Structure formats: C-alpha cells, structure tokens
C-alpha cells in the first residue's frame, strides 16, 4: 500500500477516535468546561499535559533544529524540560490549592485588582494566540505534504476537528482527547526512531544507540565521532562542540525554562486534578512522558544528520532517491547546481554549497531517508497532527476562558448566569478557531519567529508575578503591576528593536551583553522581580484577607472551589 493510503487510514482512525471521545465527554457546567470538573486522575493529567505541551514545534521542528545546531541545540532540550522542575516545585501545588479556573483569576485575586487581572488577560491572550497560529500552520504543512490536499483544505479539516471537541467538551473533552493524542504522537515518534537506531547501530533503544558504534554498512566507529568527522570534512561546525557564546546559551536556556513555567495553557492543566498531592504527581508523570520524546530527539537529530549526509553528499542529482524529488515539490529541500557537475555538493561554505535543507524535513522525511516501510512514514503524519491539534485545543481553551470568565464574568458583566457564561466561552472558542484558521492559511512571515518569543514574554510577565504572589506575602498590587509591565515591555521592546526596527544590529556585537533576543526574557524576568520588589517596599501592604489567601495556599489540604 502507498504512503498516501496508509496516511488516510491513520488520520481517519485517529480523528474518529478524537471525535468519539468528544461525544462521550460533553461539558455540562462551567467547572466541567474550564477545569474538567477538577476530577482528572494524575496519570491522565500527566499525559494530557505532555500532549498539551508538545506542539508541532516539538514534534516536527525540534530534532531538525538540533541536527543543524549540534550541541547548541541543548537550550531547547534543557529549557523545555527544566521548566517543569520550576513548575512542579514553585507553581503547580500552590495554584491547585488556590483552586480557581484561570491564570488571570490568580493574578486578579492575589493582587486584589481589576487592572492586574486585565493585564494578565492581555498577556494570556497574546501569548496563546501567537502560539496557536504556529500550530495551525504545522497542521497545514502535514496535510499538504502527506495527503496532497492544498494547505487551505488541510487547515479547515484541522479547524473543524478542534472546534468540534473543544466547543462541545471544553476542558473535559480536551483532556481525554489529549490523552489519546499523547499515545498517538509518542508512538509515531518512537517507532521510526527505534527502527533507525536498529538500522544504524543495531541497538533498539535510541538513547543508547546515540552513543554506540555504527554498523559496518554505515562505516563503523562511534556515531558521534563519525558525525563530527563528516561535519569537519564538509566544512560544517563540529557537531558536539558549541558555536554560540556561553552566556547566550545560558540566557536562552533560562528564558525557555521560566517561559515554560509561565505558559498559561500548561499551568491550567494543574487546576484539573482533585488535590495538591495529585498536582505534584501529575507534574512528575508529565515530565516522564515529555522526557521520552525529549531524550529521543537528540538521538534522532544525530541519526538524521548522518543519514542525510551519507545519502546526498556528492551524489549525482539524476540518481537521488524518490523522497528527495517529492520533498523538492514542497520547497523544503532545494538543489542548485552551482558548478554544473551534476552532483550535489553539500558544504558548510555558503558560496559553494548547493543544497538547502529546511529543518522541518529532518523529522518528517527521516523515515523515508532511512528507507523505512510506508506505514511508518504515514504514522509520522498522524503523530504530527496529534501534536499540533492537542496544543491548539489547549491554547484555544485559554483564550476562551480568558474572554468568558476573566473579561466578561469577573470584570465587565458579573451578573451573567452560568449558562450564559458557558455560551460565551463556546462562542469565543468559535471565534478564536476562525481567526487562528485564517492566520494558518495566510501566515504572516513572522509567525514562526514570534512563537519562540512567546516564551520570553511568558517568562517576563507571568512567571515572576505568580512566584512572588506565592513566596512573598508582602508583594502588593502596585509591585506586581509595575513588575509585569516592566518585564513585558522591556522584553517585547528588545525583541521588536532588533527584529524590526534595527535588524542590522541583530548580532552578537549589537546585543546587550551578547544576549540574543531569544534569551532576553531572562533579563525581563529579573527586571520584573526587581521592579516588583522595589515598588512593593514603597507602597502599602496587601489587605489582611489577601495575606490570609497566601497563608492558605501554602498549605495542602482540600481546595475550596468557588
């Protein structure tokens, strides 16, 4: 059977499964809709969190990015997992104890201020919206390549599915669909990785194959030594050595960690478990489930890079394998014969290099490059769609709760009934899906870049405000508002300055202390904390009722939901 037929089968079966789950878990109340009634078991929540968190970027792009960054790619690996330690130790248990529905809920109540709540709503919507557009684009790419439909049709199919289960089931529907999506995506990621590991090293565990010797067919010797050698020969940077400055890698890693811990769609997952102990446990499960993919990704990166060089370097263009021609049609790989010798020169030197490879191809085409069976190739498509749709659904829910709950119910029209609030929540998901779909079909050039900056913005706004709200009882509304504004504006300003106003300066010499815009969120976090602390010293203490809330969330025990 062809790849396309296999893909149709997998996509059809998995989508049917998601819809079946959605029908079984309809939401009846706002509590069901926002936090799945607070009754999700920690294991299920761990899987849902992992699927929620691992987006099209983790599934499709990350291993490819690492293949081209080598050791510098570390900041994605450590940044996107290390943040869970912060989340588990500093945020999740306390926010669960607080026991409300949304992140702006916490900010608004803890800082007894409508202004703080509205700033939080603004940050939550901006961050989630930027992020969701990237997911729709990812789904579009997969549909267009594997099902050979055009991107518009692909995005519309994706939108319809997400819309169906998000609008019907809210958090309840999303949670159990995400559990299924996690299973699909991890299976789809691991099967090709295991196949390739066996093929290249004879070891069935990719994490170990990564440090093993290649089989005789691949020339023997340790994989990483061989990759270093080939990279040097072709004039690329040595794979296992860093190119970026140490302080830049340090700051980017920190920004991704703080950002991970501050992303509203991840935080709200911890509102759905029954109690504080379960919140801690589900953070543990979540990181295990994430770590399975994240420890495999660097191995996949090294396998794919080795395989790519072996397959295309100095090969005659007329004798390239079939996958090469198919991916050329999507413009993700392109060849220009600069010296007219009919062979592909893949070199580090930009003047002589004749091959441009898009990083996304490294995961999507990896099974084809390694010559794996058609059903494995098709599985990757279903996995990438699961990753994109699960994250999109979680983000859309944040947008809808921010609008229906924080903006309407808690700020502007408090008199609406629960039924009306639920209706508004469903309407706002509907509108958000339409806008996200539109942006997915007509992607502005900067979306992909902006997704990376969403982390810096989350790091500089939410993370310090929440941590200070829990660990500093004296922190008041003046401090928190000033801190969030300072952190958000500084980070956004720095990014906008280098990316749009003065791109000529966007290099290590132009940056402040050699910190790239990707890493500046770390400065934003620190600035937020310092400003908040200083301002709070010179303004009145928070009221007694608020100090009691803080004392209360520090202790476990049954959370009381209002």
């Amino acid at each position, binding site marked *: 059977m062809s790849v396309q037929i296999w893909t149709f089968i997998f996509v059809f079966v998995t989508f049917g499964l998601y819809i079946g789950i959605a029908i079984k878990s309809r939401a009846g109340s706002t509590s069901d809709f926002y936090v799945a009634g607070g009754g999700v078991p920690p294991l299920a929540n761990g899987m849902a969190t992992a699927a929620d968190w691992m987006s099209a970027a983790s599934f499709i792009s990350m291993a490819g990015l*690492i293949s081209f960054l080598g*050791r510098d*790619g*570390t900041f994605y*690996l*450590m940044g996107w*997992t*290390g943040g*869970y*330690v*912060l989340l*588990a*130790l*500093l945020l999740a*248990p306390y926010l669960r104890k607080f026991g409300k529905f949304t992140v702006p809920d916490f900010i608004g109540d803890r800082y007894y201020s409508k202004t703080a709540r509205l700033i939080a709503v603004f940050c939550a919507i901006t961050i989630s919206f930027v992020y969701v557009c990237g997911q729709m684009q990812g789904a579009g790419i997969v549909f267009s390549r594997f099902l050979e439909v055009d991107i518009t049709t692909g995005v519309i199919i994706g939108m319809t599915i997400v819309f169906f289960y998000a609008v019907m089931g809210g958090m309840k529907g999303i949670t159990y669909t995400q559990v299924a999506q996690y299973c699909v995506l991890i299976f789809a990621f691991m099967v090709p990785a295991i196949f390739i590991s066996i093929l290249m090293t004879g070891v069935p565990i990719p*994490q170990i194959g*990564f*440090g*093993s*010797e290649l089989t005789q067919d691949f020339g023997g010797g*340790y*994989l*990483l*030594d061989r990759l270093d050698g080939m990279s040097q020969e072709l004039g690329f940077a040595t794979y*296992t*050595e*860093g190119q970026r400055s*140490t302080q830049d*890698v*340090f700051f980017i*890693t*920190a920004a991704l*960690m703080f950002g991970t811990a501050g992303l509203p769609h991840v935080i709200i997952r911890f509102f759905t478990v*029954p*109690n*504080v*102990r*379960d919140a*801690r*446990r589900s*953070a*543990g499960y979540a*990181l*295990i489930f994430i*770590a399975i993919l*994240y*420890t495999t990704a*660097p191995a996949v990166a090294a396998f794919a890079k080795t395989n790519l060089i072996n397959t295309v370097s100095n090969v005659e263009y007329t004798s390239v394998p079939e996958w090469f021609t198919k991916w050329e049609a999507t413009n993700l790989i392109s060849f220009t014969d600069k010296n007219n010798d009919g062979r592909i020169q893949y070199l580090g030197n930009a003047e002589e290099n004749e091959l441009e490879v898009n990083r996304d191809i490294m995961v999507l085409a990896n099974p084809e490059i390694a010559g794996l069976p058609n059903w494995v190739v098709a599985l990757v498509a279903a996995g990438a769609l699961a990753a994109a749709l699960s994250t999109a659904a979680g983000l859309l829910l944040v947008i809808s709760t921010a609008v229906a709950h924080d903006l309407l119910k808690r700020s502007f029209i408090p008199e609406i009934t629960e039924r009306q609030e639920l209706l508004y929540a469903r309407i706002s998901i509907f509108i958000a899906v339409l806008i996200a779909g539109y942006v997915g079909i007509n992607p502005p050039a900067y979306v992909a870049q902006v997704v990376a900056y969403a982390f810096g913005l989350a790091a500089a706004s939410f993370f310090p405000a929440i941590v200070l709200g829990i660990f500093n009882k004296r922190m008041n509304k003046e401090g928190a508002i000033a801190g969030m504004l300072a952190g958000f504006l500084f980070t956004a300003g720095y990014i906008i300055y280098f990316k749009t106003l003065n791109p000529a300066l966007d290099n290590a010499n132009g940056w402040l202390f050699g910190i790239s815009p990707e890493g500046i969120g770390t400065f934003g976090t620190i600035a937020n904390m310092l400003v908040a602390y200083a301002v709070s010293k010179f303004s009145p203490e928070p009221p007694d009722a608020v100090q009691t809330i803080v*004392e209360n969330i*520090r*202790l*476990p*025990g*049954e959370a*009381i939901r209002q």
Partner: protein
Amino acid sequence: MSDNSARSYWRSNIRIVLTLLSVWFFISFGCGILLVDTLDNIRFGGFKLGFWISQQGSIFVFVALIYIYIYLMDKLDNKYNFESSTSASTSDQAPEETITEEQET
C-alpha cells in the same frame, strides 16, 4: 492548624525546594552549560560527558528531582497530618510533639 506549625511546615517546604533547585541549577546551568567543555574531556562509550549531560543526562536528573520532591513532600505532609484526599476540617490538627520539635529549630 496552628500558626506555629503552619510556619514550620512552610520553612521545611522552602528548605526542600531550595535544596532541589540548587541541584537543578548545578546540573543544567553548571554541568550542562558553564562546565561543558571541561567535562567533555571525560568520555564514556561514544559520548563526551559534557555533551551527554547537556543533551540527555540533565533531563533524567530533572525527572528524578520531581520524584524526590514528591517523596519528600508526601513525608512532610504526613508528618503534619495533611491528607489531601480528605476534607480540610479533619486534617487541621497537627500532632502536638511536632510543633514543639520544630519550634526549637
């Protein structure tokens, strides 16, 4: 639960969090970034140690840290008689001897 035992519970909690976060910092930012070139001189199998910690080892440590945290916090909760699964009213009483013991430290 009394103010005193609440305060000592919180102090123990902070101590656990700070200890685990220093390990977190040492492994990720210390070994994975700042000391990576030095550690690369040590090899095992096909890996250079620094490279391995930064791309794989640190993630295993992160998982372990969360599980140590869960274990220590469960122990702490039991000591102060918190039962998350039951209602707050039955778990508000901390044992008398725990309070005096913790006050001295």
